[in-house]
C-alpha cells in the first residue's frame, strides 16, 4: 500500500471524511438545540460534557443500546434499509461538498446534479420508511413528505442552479473556487436565490414551519413513529448529517465555502460559516408556526417557484453574475 492510498483512506475515514463529519453533525445538533433553547429561555443540553456538548453523542449511543422493535406488519427489508439509506445519503453528498479546502474529496463536473439527486433520494427514503412501517401515522407522514418534496424540489434546484450558472460550472468545488477567485460571494449577487435556498433547506430538513411530515401534535412522529433503537439512532444521525449538508451546501454555493483567510485554515472558516448558517436555521425555526401541507405546497408554487425562476432570469440577464 502506498502512502497515497493510505492518505486517501485516512481522508475518507477521518478527516475530512466520515469521522469529522459525524463529529460536526453532533456538534451542529448541539448548536441547534442550544440556540433554540436559548431563544425559548431554556438551557437546552447542559450536563453531558461542557455545556452539554456531548449530549447528541450520548443520545446516539443510548439509542444504539436500546431495544430495536420491528412492527409485525412492516415490510422488514425496506424498514431496515430505510434508516441506513437515510444516514448514508447525506454522508455521500458531503464527500462532494468542499469542507477542508476549496476542493472536495470527490469532485467531478456535474456533482451538483448528484447532490440534487441524493436529496431527492432522501425524500424517497423517507416515503419508503413511512410506507414500510404500515402505521397510519407513518403512512400519512410519508405521504406528506413526498407531497412536500413536490413543493420544494423545484425551487431548491433552481436556487442551486443560480450559482452554477454564475460560475459556469456544475461542480460545487468549481463554484467555490469561482467565488474565491472573483472575490465575491454569490449571496450578494443572488439574494433571492439565497432566500429561496434557505426556505427550501428548512423544508428539506423538516424544520418548523415545514415540519409537516413529522408534526408531533398531528401525527405523533410522522414517518418516524415506528422506528426505535439502532434504526432511530441512524435516523437521528442522518438528520444531523442533513443539517451539516444543508449548511455546507449553502456555504459552498452562496458563501464561498472554505476559504483561506490570512493564517486561518479553510476548515475553520468553513466551520464558522456553517455554524452561522445553523444559527440562522435555528432562529428561523423558532419564530414560526407550522404550515398545513396544502398551504405549504401551494405557497411554494405560488411564491418560491416564481421567485426562483425570477432569479434565474435575472442571472441570464446578467444581473448577479
Amino acid at each position: 500500500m502506498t502512502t497515497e492510498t493510505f492518505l486517501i483512506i485516512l481522508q475518507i475515514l477521518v478527516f475530512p471524511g466520515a469521522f469529522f463529519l459525524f463529529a460536526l453533525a453532533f456538534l451542529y445538533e448541539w448548536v441547534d438545540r442550544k440556540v433554540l433553547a436559548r431563544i425559548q429561555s431554556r438551557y437546552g443540553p447542559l450536563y453531558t460534557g461542557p455545556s452539554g456538548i456531548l449530549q447528541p453523542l450520548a443520545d446516539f449511543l443510548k439509542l444504539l443500546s436500546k431495544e430495536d422493535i420491528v412492527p409485525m406488519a412492516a415490510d422488514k427489508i425496506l424498514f431496515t434499509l430505510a434508516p441506513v439509506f437515510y444516514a448514508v445519503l447525506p454522508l455521500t453528498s458531503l464527500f462532494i461538498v468542499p469542507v477542508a479546502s476549496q476542493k472536495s474529496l470527490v469532485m467531478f463536473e456535474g456533482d451538483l446534479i448528484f447532490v440534487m439527486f441524493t436529496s431527492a433520494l432522501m425524500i424517497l427514503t423517507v416515503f419508503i420508511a413511512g410506507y414500510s412501517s404500515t402505521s397510519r401515522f407513518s403512512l400519512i407522514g410519508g405521504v406528506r413528505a413526498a407531497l412536500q418534496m413536490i413543493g420544494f424540489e423545484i425551487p431548491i434546484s433552481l436556487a442551486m442552479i443560480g450559482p452554477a450558472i454564475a460560475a459556469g460550472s456544475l461542480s460545487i468545488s468549481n463554484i467555490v473556487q469561482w467565488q474565491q477567485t472573483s472575490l465575491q460571494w454569490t449571496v450578494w449577487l443572488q439574494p433571492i436565490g439565497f432566500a429561496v435556498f434557505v426556505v427550501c433547506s428548512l423544508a428539506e430538513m423538516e424544520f418548523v414551519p415545514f415540519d409537516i411530515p413529522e408534526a408531533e401534535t398531528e401525527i405523533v412522529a410522522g414517518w418516524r413513529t415506528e422506528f426505535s433503537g439502532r434504526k432511530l439512532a441512524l435516523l437521528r444521525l442522518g438528520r444531523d448529517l442533513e443539517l451539516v449538508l444543508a449548511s455546507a451546501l449553502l456555504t459552498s454555493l452562496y458563501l464561498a465555502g472554505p476559504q483561506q483567510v490570512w493564517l486561518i485554515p479553510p476548515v475553520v472558516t468553513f466551520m464558522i460559516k456553517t455554524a452561522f448558517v445553523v444559527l440562522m436555521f435555528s432562529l428561523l425555526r423558532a419564530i414560526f408556526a407550522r404550515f398545513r401541507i396544502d398551504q405549504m405546497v401551494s405557497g411554494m408554487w405560488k411564491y418560491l417557484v416564481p421567485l426562483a425562476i425570477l432569479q434565474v432570469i435575472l442571472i441570464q440577464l446578467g444581473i448577479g453574475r
Partner: protein
Amino acid sequence: MSLLKEALQRLFRKPVTLKYPFEKRPVPEGFRGRPVWDMRKCIGCGLCSNVCPSGAIEMVGKGLQSEIKHYVDRCMFCSQCVESCPRNAIKMTQEYELAGFDRSKMLYEYKREI
C-alpha cells in the same frame, strides 16, 4: 416574523429555567409541605385521621395512648388536618421533595415519649 425581535433578545439573555435538583427554589411562607405532628401536643382525638380526604392518616390506639401513622404517599397536602386540629399539634413544613421508589419509606410514624 413578529416574534423575531423577542427571539433575538432572548438569545442573549439568561434562561429562566431553574436547574432544579441542583438549584432549589425557596418556597414562600405558608407553603403546604409535608405535615408533621407534635406528639407532645396531640391529645389523640383522631379528628385528623377522620377529616383526611385521602385516608393518609391513621391513628393507632385511643386517646393519650395513641400513635399517628402518616402515609405521605397518600397525602395530598390539603392541610385540612392542620385546620381541624384543635391544638396546633400539626404543622405544614416546607419539605416538598417527597417522591421515592419505596412506599414503605413514605410512612412517618409519630410515637409518644413515655
